[in-house]
């Protein structure tokens, strides 16, 4: 199939074929990353702007390296040191960047829907690098890529996502990609952060507050960071209590299948979501997720570069 989108705004609106095309393209970019010469001229002459209104280091570095490996010029624009602090609107900021011939805008923003808003007027390709509690498409893609690579498939797998689901854009992007590609998703965590209504998103989603039940049949356990910054009120008594009730420790690892993957989008809080020995253990693929993130982001930039205006726009 051909890729026809100009923007990557979310995974919810992507078809199984589109998701698979990104994952297959990423597989090639991963193998290209193993060559002695890792740089390719596919985006030579293009300008990529990392517009990070909400701070993030690892995602920005990953996008920056992806763009550089494809020979694009990269500008990093962070909210702390920008005109946004002086009261300029997001729209004006982007129009100014476009006046400098920006071809891609990678947007990280605390407001859900900010990339969709940009895509309505931007001439540049817009890539959502995380918008509020809505979606983080490239994280969902790299997690899905890692699972498919390690397990050889996605259809029929049981994937447990554990932690703060309510405020997690990572969870939401994972959920959409996984169910579209045929996996079954179990969501687990404190009831305040994992409402039963999440089951209404898709028939292949199950909510449980029983950790043992969530871990027993899992082929993949994806642990999420507690998003303190997005909680307006305290949703559980304390970090200590969260760790005591839902942290992955050696005793609970006994419930987990010996060939299950342990994943975490980072940054990990050792001793909270996961104990150190498990994060560094044989079942952990946390660092491979980082490597795969680079390949996925190269694939996204490469595909969007060919996306035509006037065809399928954004959502």
């Amino acid at each position, binding site marked *: 199939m051909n890729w026809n989108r100009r923007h990557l705004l979310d995974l919810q609106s992507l078809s199984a074929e589109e998701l698979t095309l990104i994952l297959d393209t990423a597989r090639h970019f991963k193998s290209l990353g193993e060559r002695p010469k890792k740089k390719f001229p596919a985006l030579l002459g*293009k300008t990529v702007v990392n517009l990070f209104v909400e701070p993030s280091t690892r995602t920005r570095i990953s996008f920056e390296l992806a763009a550089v490996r494809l020979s694009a010029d990269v500008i990093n624009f962070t909210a702390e040191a920008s005109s946004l602090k002086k009261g300029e609107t997001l729209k004006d900021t982007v129009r100014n960047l476009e006046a400098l011939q920006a071809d891609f805008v990678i947007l990280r923003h605390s407001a859900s829907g900010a990339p969709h808003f940009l895509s309505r007027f931007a001439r540049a390709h817009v890539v959502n690098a995380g918008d509020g509690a809505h979606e983080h498409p490239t994280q969902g893609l790299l997690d899905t890529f890692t699972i498919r690579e390690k397990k050889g498939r996605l259809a029929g797998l049981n994937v447990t996502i554990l932690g703060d689901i309510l405020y997690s854009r990572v969870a939401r992007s994972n959920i959409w990609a996984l169910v579209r590609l045929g996996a079954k998703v179990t969501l687990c965590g404190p009831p305040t952060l994992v409402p039963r209504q999440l089951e209404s998103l898709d028939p292949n989603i199950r909510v449980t507050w029983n950790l043992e039940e969530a871990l027993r049949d899992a082929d993949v356990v994806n642990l999420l960071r507690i998003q303190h910054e997005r909680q307006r009120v305290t949703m559980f008594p304390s970090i200590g209590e969260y760790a005591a009730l839902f942290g992955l420790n050696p005793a609970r690892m006994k419930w987990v299948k010996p060939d299950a993957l342990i994943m975490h989008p980072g940054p990990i809080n050792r001793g909270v979501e996961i104990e150190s020995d498990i994060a560094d253990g044989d079942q952990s693929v946390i660092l491979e997720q980082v490597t795969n993130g680079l390949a996925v982001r190269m694939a996204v930039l490469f595909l969007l570069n060919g996306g035509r205006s006037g065809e399928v726009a954004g959502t």
Partner: protein
Amino acid sequence: MSALLLDSTALGRTIARMAHEIAERNPAGTDLVLVGIQTGGVFLARRLAAQLSTIYGHAVPAGFLDVALHRDDLDRRSAPMLRPTELPFDVNGRTVVLVDDVLYSGRTTRAALDALHDFGRPNRVQLAVLVDRGHRELPVRADFVGKNVPTSRSQRVEVSLTEDGGNDTVTLQELKS
């Protein structure tokens, strides 16, 4: 509507003749490697390498090369599928014969030269194509040509090989406008 340019007998003879021409141009053949351009050149390079191995009496290695990331039209079309590259030899100091099925604008050959140089500096590069259909847009010329075919831009040259599930024929087809 389509016209048969080569049937399977003629195709076999053509590939054999190309192999002999390559051997004649490269008498020792000890530094020779064949590189098929994805996707149309992959199986042709293998066939030529097999015949050359017989002619020389020593193995001539073949690999394949994806040129998608080096194309010059990536922002003008839907992104091309990426395909694997496998060069099971060092290209430095070798004589590389690039192999493709059809030579048309010359843009794929240009991309292939760039893609190849990511792997090193060959001593020389030669180009072998099964069909040269004209309409060059770049100063590219093949060293070994199976068949020269005058075409119009509204036609398409279809190379069908058994390795790809085809029937070893080359046909000229009219594209519907």
